[in-house]
């Protein structure tokens, strides 16, 4: 993923008419909207799918791997 971002930065510089050795200060509006969608989906994915958030919301991890065992979750009881 970090390599994808190396390419992404070069693409954004090209889009903004900035040379590789010049600073990229702003990003296109379309990129902001698309990044915002990704950020919202990322937060949703985190709430729905990450073990730590599942504990917080549901009181138990609903999709944890086998090497995790829940002992006690007082907030859910």
């Amino acid at each position, binding site marked *: 993923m970090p390599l994808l971002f190396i390419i992404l930065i070069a693409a954004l510089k090209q889009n903004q008419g900035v040379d590789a050795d010049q600073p990229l200060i702003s990003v296109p509006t379309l990129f902001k909207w698309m990044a915002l969608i990704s*950020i919202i989906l990322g937060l949703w994915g985190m709430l729905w799918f990450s073990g730590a958030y599942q504990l917080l919301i549901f009181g138990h991890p609903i999709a944890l791997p086998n090497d995790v065992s829940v002992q006690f*979750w007082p907030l859910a009881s």
Partner: protein
Amino acid sequence: MLNSPTASTEPTPDAAIERRQFLRFFVLIFLLMLPVLLSIVFVNINNLDVALASGFLHDHLYAEGIALNTIDTVPLNGHSYLPLGPLTSALEVPFVALLGADFNPMWLDFALTMLNVWLFWRLLIRLRVAGAARTWLAAFFFIGALYLPQAAGISTWNLIQVAAITLTLAALNLAEHEQWLWVGLLLGCAVNARFSLILNVLYFVLLILFNQELPHPTQVRRLMLLGAGLLGPMLLLFWYNYARFGSPLETGYILSLPGSAYALATRQGGLFSLDHIPTNFYYMFLNGFAAYPTESATALQFPWIRRPARGMSILLTSPALLYVFAAPLRDRRVRAALPTIIIGILGLLSY
């Protein structure tokens, strides 16, 4: 000289703004990672990594106290071995030595994630990304491109991904400083976390070769430094594999107990096969939301949609990545990263 900004010990207004910008982002990620800290308090993790760290402390290469029928482990000669790189367990050794086998490795997950924020920020600075663009890209990387959903998972596997990102980001930073011996060392350590990261070496080799300003002997010298750094960790990994399974290239993955009938079925055609491509292509690029509670429910319930078990299309979760298609091929970083990513995607699709 007195008027030079570098001569003053006071930060310039721009530097102070940038520092505040970084601190705000750091605190945001810290808050989003807080549930991981809470999970440390309330969840007892019988972590495979910690069991292996205990093994290391007692001069074994197997995970101590892990039942022979545990999925994702390799039962051999009465012991459970892990089909994973040894790096995260090696990192946990001092903590397990001090705190015992109850050490919760999610502390490490949390600390490495905060380190990753700093490393990615430093990389953005090195790549001359400034102002609002820096915050947008950092937010997209950590929240929008599924870093945090992975880091907030609580398992061995998630910790390995986080450690792999730490080492890769550190290597990318040091490559910008031309510290090739260290880059090689970090890449070798990353391979010890996740075997597939050997592919990343290609990016750094091409980065050196595509630098037309360098005379040939300098390129050769840098490649040799990269190789020298890589050598130590790679030899250690080969020895680790050989000592466990009798072959330096046997990671144990194909020998491990599958976690489900689905995992077993996918292995029938081999770890890598052309047969896997249509399935992986579908899940990587085409799969969308799933209905909640089920596809066959006559009336959906709140929140009506759910993330499907095998993930959603990257085009749906991270559409901003489509911008990569506009990248200029004259940029040597792009020319180095592109073949590395294409080979990586082909590997993922056939896996």
